[in-house]
């Protein structure tokens, strides 16, 4: 009976320690959770910067039409190197379609920055002819199709029998049309970010 008071003291000390431990553990998990959320938010911003600038390359190269796809290729390489410095992988597949509007020709250029060799395929509309090329990593492949200016076309790009995407181009008589198909992937520390889209441009000459 004499030790009743001491027991209360011991119990209160134990309760106090348990509360502090509880507080610390909640704090640490909160900190980690919030830090993770911030990291993901930051990476997302980073990725949107890359995607916006990728699109921007076409606009920047507008008056130098022959270089549009080459500049996209160069910028993709630039981003890939920068991401490697941060030990992050960056995969990029690009297809650039361009028609001059006068010569019934359409150039299609595929860029492989997927960090692996691919067997790329291209098909115009539902043609039986499928062109293909063994593409090394960081390489490009260009072919030309004979078309009728003013008509719409669908180019199907694929690789390794596992990937297939349709790209639509509406050509115009006496106007140069450029279509860029972007497939961008960034492997962040916590999440993978991916954007797949196509953009069409009517090109003008200076």
């Amino acid at each position, binding site marked *: 009976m004499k030790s009743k008071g001491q027991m209360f003291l011991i119990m209160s000390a134990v309760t106090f320690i348990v509360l502090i431990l509880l507080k610390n553990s909640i704090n640490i998990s909160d900190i980690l959770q919030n830090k993770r959320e911030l990291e993901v938010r930051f990476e997302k911003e*980073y990725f949107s910067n890359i995607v916006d600038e990728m699109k921007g390359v076409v*606009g920047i190269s507008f008056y130098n039409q022959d270089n549009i796809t080459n500049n996209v290729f160069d*910028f993709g390489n630039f981003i890939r190197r920068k991401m490697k410095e941060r030990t992050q992988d960056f995969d990029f597949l690009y297809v650039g379609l361009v028609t001059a509007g006068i010569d019934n020709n359409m150039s299609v250029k595929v860029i492989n920055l997927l960090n692996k060799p691919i067997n790329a395929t291209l098909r115009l509309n539902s043609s039986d002819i499928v062109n293909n090329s063994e593409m090394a990593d960081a390489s490009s492949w260009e072919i030309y199709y004979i078309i009728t200016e003013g008509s719409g076309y669908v180019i199907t790009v694929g690789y390794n029998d596992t990937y297939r995407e349709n790209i639509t181009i509406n050509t115009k008589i006496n106007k140069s049309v450029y279509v860029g198909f972007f497939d961008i992937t960034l492997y962040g520390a916590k999440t993978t970010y991916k954007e797949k889209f196509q953009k069409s441009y009517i090109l003008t000459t200076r």
Partner: protein
Amino acid sequence: MKGQMYILEATISILLILFIVVYLFQNPFNSPEYERMNYKIKTYKAITVLDDTGKLRKDVVNNNVSSIRDNLYPFISKNLNYNVTIFNDTSNITMKPSSSSDMISVSYFLAGDFDNYLPRDVRVYLWGFE
């Protein structure tokens, strides 16, 4: 009387526990890494604001880091040191601050300015965290 005393004791105990719990949990957590990540996001946002105004691209194409630095001034915490370095594909093309143990950096990629393809990595370095 004895019952009232028990109620009083119980009330005091509950108040004590509540006080301890409120005291322990009231302060928001504060971790240096969390704080630095916050600074990174704020700095990134500041760079995007400069890009939206069109100033950034012109300054980057002209390697005018002092102008970028001045334009960033209102956005950077006054107790921090900061500097701006422009990188091309392989290395820095403007002065890089000497590294410090508490230094963080934020990159922003640019493909150039209108009709001038010039890929650049604009890096803002921040240091002097408490």
